[in-house]
């Protein structure tokens, strides 16, 4: 089989239009990190178990390691870099910082994205623990993360 060329890909990421040449099957995670140059979104497992690569795709919370770039065509993507507004952290980010919801930081961007998705649509899961069940943290033991999410949602 002849090597297929990269194709033009366009989407809106954190409110800004982006287009470039990307292989259609390239993982959205890699496109975001390597082509767009936003490295806040992390790779953990690469198989949908850890949630470190969580982003929003047209408002839906997804694992970007499982999304081929061709399926982001024309869509709106939000990454951790897109949560702050006018230089002010998102309330969920503030809460994680205040409550000590982050230690090594690798899971934090994905954890915060999943937490923001749950705060926006609490009907998407039965409870907070289920909403964050797809985000693994090996440092905190989760209690401070849960406290951070609860406090942010109470505000």
């Amino acid at each position: 089989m002849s090597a297929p060329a990269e194709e033009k890909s366009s989407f809106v990421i954190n409110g800004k239009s982006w287009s470039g040449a990307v292989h259609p099957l390239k993982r959205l995670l890699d496109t975001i990190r390597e082509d767009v140059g936003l490295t806040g979104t992390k790779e953990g497992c690469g198989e949908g178990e850890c949630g470190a690569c969580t982003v929003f795709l047209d408002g839906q919370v997804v694992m970007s390691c499982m999304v081929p770039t061709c399926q982001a065509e024309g869509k709106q993507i939000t990454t951790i870099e897109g949560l702050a507004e006018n230089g002010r952290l998102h309330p969920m980010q503030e809460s994680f910082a205040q409550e000590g919801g982050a230690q090594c930081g690798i899971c934090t961007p994905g954890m915060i994205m999943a937490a923001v998705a749950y705060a926006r649509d609490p009907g998407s899961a039965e409870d907070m623990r289920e909403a964050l069940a797809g985000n693994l943290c090996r440092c905190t033991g989760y209690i401070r993360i849960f406290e951070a999410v609860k406090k942010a949602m109470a505000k």
Partner: protein
Amino acid sequence: MKSSIADFAVISPRTLAEALASLRQTPPPVPLAGGTDIMVLLNAGQLEPGVYLNLYSVPELRRPIEVSAGVRDAGTWGAGGADPPGEVRLSALTTYADVRRHAEVRRLLPMLPLAAREIGAVQIQSRATWAGNIANASPAADGVPPLMAYDATVELSSAAGVRQVALSEFYSGYKQTARRPDELITGIRIPVPAPGSIDYFRKVGTRKFQAISKVLLAGLVELGGSREIRKIRLVFASVMPFTYRARKTESVLEGRRLEPGAVSLAVETLRTELKPIDDIRSTARYRLKVACNLLEEFLGTTMGC
């Protein structure tokens, strides 16, 4: 990534007709829906090089869930035998999240949201599709057993036309399905069960969340006025090489009154009917024991209803 991405190509058709025409190529492209299986294989270097058919570019394949008229009117429920049975139709790209959010489906087909909740995390539920779960043909599929217990039908479309295949006839062996390579799953039709039907859904995995099942039973029973079993469906995942409907055990139960003797007879029948698999997640011995326990729990709790 372990795969060389240059070995892969993607076709993004604009219409269903274009998608079906492309499936007539030799070799036919492989349909790609939410990517939650395919992208993992790609990253692990285990995906077959070739051409993939991006279904997300076809708007006709991503339609809202349809609930047929007749069941909308809750007031006519149970008012007699004259009501139309009613049907729920999922589109090719209906996701688990779509079903969890749909109040009517939650009410009419309660096992579907229970299964949806078991599929990975919410991030996966927003991408993974019911049709993809059917086509992928994993013996451990969580979405397929409740659909099969509800007597769902798979709508298969090709350039030559459309045909309907009962989901319970769809699998013939490990990863062997009735779908021809030129066909696409374009819909899933699920008849609404008779009023008063009792369902049972239990997945046994290693953890509460994010686990692949060791044994799963989706059951549905319709009881008559004198507690006789009019109809029963017993569907197991992760036990046999494909999602398995235990027809022999069903037929032993149908027509019988639901009482302790019937329960022990059913469990004995199931014990000889199942030939469980041994794999990385569990042993055949464990699976047989737990499958029988789940059946006993289903029938036992139903008896108490």
